[in-house]
């Protein structure tokens, strides 16, 4: 008797699913889940999967693989996902060098790629593609905003610092694009460097009135701890990456008061964001990070497109994505002509809420900001 009931229930469920939408969408998520940078990938995945779980849409299937932060592994995984798993949409890559290895060939095979983080300039300008959408930002955005903020805060002479690799150079270029004052000194450090004593000594001697630094991951933790220990008190400004929720705990009180620029913050005032922060915390027992918010928005963007169009009609599906008709944790969400967001970028300050270090919005650095490459994109 019980057997018959379950069978009927299953048939009913199948029929119900069949009547709603014809084509299931299969998503391949390639992200960093092991090794040094795993915290970022795990956050992006958890944010994405939270939205998937909340939507509970039986037509959406997700396959997740770990790229170990290695471009060759990412390429292999992408090939496997496209040829073997037959995914329709790819997403998940955190690092720009991995994105450059995977995205151009994936979009050329007519797969849609939604970026949860990495958005190198090469894919925003001449190399833009109708199948490529960046949900997060364009790489330069937060650095440009930091330059804009430093100018409006009245700083005249900035010491600027980034690792010696393409994203580091883009960062300093982005800062200078919007900073009106003088540059006291421009320093490139080794990628992965963990001791900044030599650079901090130069900062002390430079006579600058502000320090802009872009040192993602462990480099930023090391720099901020050593900066606080050094007794130098020139104010620090940076993009959100070094002041993000995942690493603030490791930096400790050394981060208090540091200004950073971000397109998301947990105190952006809209109901979607409030619900996201609350449900993320309930589900995973920690505060969401920037990367978690990008993952969450990416999944909701995809789900919104699935509600409007079928994946078998690629043109219509892309149009549905382009209209970005979903509730973003950042409030209003609009794509520019190169399919990168046009958005407000905020200035945040690191504060302590009880025992937990987190960020609070203190102003808007750039309003409705696009990027420097959109005009070069012809789609």
């Amino acid at each position, binding site marked *: 008797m019980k057997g018959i009931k379950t069978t009927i229930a299953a048939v009913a469920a199948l029929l119900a699913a069949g009547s709603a939408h014809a084509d299931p969408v299969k998503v391949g998520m390639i992200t960093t*889940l*092991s*090794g*040094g940078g*795993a*915290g970022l990938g*795990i956050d992006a995945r958890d944010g994405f999967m939270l939205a998937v779980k909340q939507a509970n849409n039986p037509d959406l299937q997700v396959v997740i693989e770990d790229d170990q932060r290695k471009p060759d592994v990412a390429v292999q995984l992408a090939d496997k996902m496209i040829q073997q798993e037959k995914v329709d949409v790819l997403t998940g890559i955190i690092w720009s060098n991995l994105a450059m290895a995977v995205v151009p060939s994936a979009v050329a095979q007519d797969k849609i790629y939604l970026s949860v983080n990495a958005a190198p300039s090469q894919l925003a300008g001449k190399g833009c593609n109708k199948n490529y959408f960046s949900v997060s930002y364009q790489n330069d955005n937060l650095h440009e905003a930091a330059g804009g903020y430093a100018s409006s805060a009245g700083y005249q002479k900035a010491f600027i610092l980034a690792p*010696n690799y393409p994203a580091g150079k883009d960062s300093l270029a982005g800062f200078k694009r919007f900073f009106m004052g003088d540059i006291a000194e*421009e*320093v*490139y*450090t*080794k990628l*992965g460097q*963990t*001791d900044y*004593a*030599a*650079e901090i*000594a*130069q900062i*002390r*001697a430079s006579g600058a009135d502000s320090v802009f630094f872009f040192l993602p*991951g*462990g480099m930023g*933790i*090391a720099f901020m*701890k*050593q900066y606080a*220990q*050094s*007794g130098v008190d020139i104010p620090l400004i940076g993009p959100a990456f070094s002041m993000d929720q*995942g*690493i603030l*705990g*490791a*930096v*400790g*009180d*050394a981060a208090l008061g540091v200004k950073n620029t971000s397109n998301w913050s947990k105190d952006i005032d809209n109901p979607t964001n409030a619900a996201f922060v609350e449900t993320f915390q309930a589900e995973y027992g920690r505060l969401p990070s920037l990367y978690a918010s990008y993952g969450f928005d990416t999944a909701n963007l995809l789900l919104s497109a699935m509600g409007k169009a079928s994946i078998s009609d690629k043109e219509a599906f892309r149009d549905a994505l382009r209209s970005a008709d979903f509730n973003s944790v950042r409030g209003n969400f609009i794509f520019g002509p190169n399919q990168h967001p046009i958005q407000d970028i905020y200035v945040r300050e690191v504060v302590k809420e009880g025992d937990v270090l987190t960020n609070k919005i203190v102003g808007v650095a750039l309003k409705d900001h696009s990027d420097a490459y959109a005009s070069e994109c012809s789609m």
Partner: protein
Amino acid sequence: MFSLFLEQLLNSLQSGLMLFLMASGLTLVFGVMGLINLAHGSLYMVGAFACAAVAAWTGSFWLGLVASVMAAALAGVLVEMLIIRRLYNRDHLDQVLATFALILVFSEGTRWLFGSFPLFLSVPDILTGTVVLPGALEYPIFRLAIIIAGLLVAVGLFLLIGKTRLGVRIRAGEADRGMIAALGVNIDRLYTVVFALGAALAGLAGAFVGTTQSVQVGMGEPVLILAFVVIVIGGIGSIKGALVGSLLVGFTDTMGRFLLPHAFATFLDPSSATAIGSALASMLIYIVMALVLFLRPSGLFGTEA
């Protein structure tokens, strides 16, 4: 300018001494047992995580420091008795493969225990702040403390090797392994002790460095590479070589990062001077290594193979 220069000299000394803590263990293990241990960086990570975990749990950095040495030494003993012991008579390729596997085991094991996010470890209150040195130079007390601790460990290690019975055995082991076994020295135990000593030094370095950097999975590998550069420069197996090599690498790296961009700026425009200077600075220690190898193929204090 003078105080900036002096500050950079102190920074060089500090980074050199921390490298020495890593390199001395690596070179001892190679000198005595003829083993290439890629997992040395993992022992450094074990030290840092043990210090961070115990400091967070008890609220005392000093207990954390003790824990870092003990945890790394214990990990060293276990690894030596369970795995490394089987590798002494194998060729170097087998040793490299097996100890590389150990890196993966340690990394994923640490992630499994502590999660993927970096841990917090900070300087104890008594060592925070700065002190004013001659030349109106403000220098962090903690870095000064690391310099002093590094010097003490270096002196202690030289006394241990030069003046004690264990030291005699270690030197004898380096000279002729077969002979000291024939003379009735328990060679298995000697190997375990040497490995644990090297591991403890790496763990101590991990705890010191962890307070100024980030305690995270994979933190050991970049240091491991530098430590290998040091022992190649100093001569593999030589503690004196490790000390000289560490200081040389510390000075070359710090001063290169500081001076090269300025040197190029005297005849190039600022942005290309920065770009070329910092690119060259990051290669400088390898250039020094190549030069040393060219002039003295077995390193500064190495014995001819």
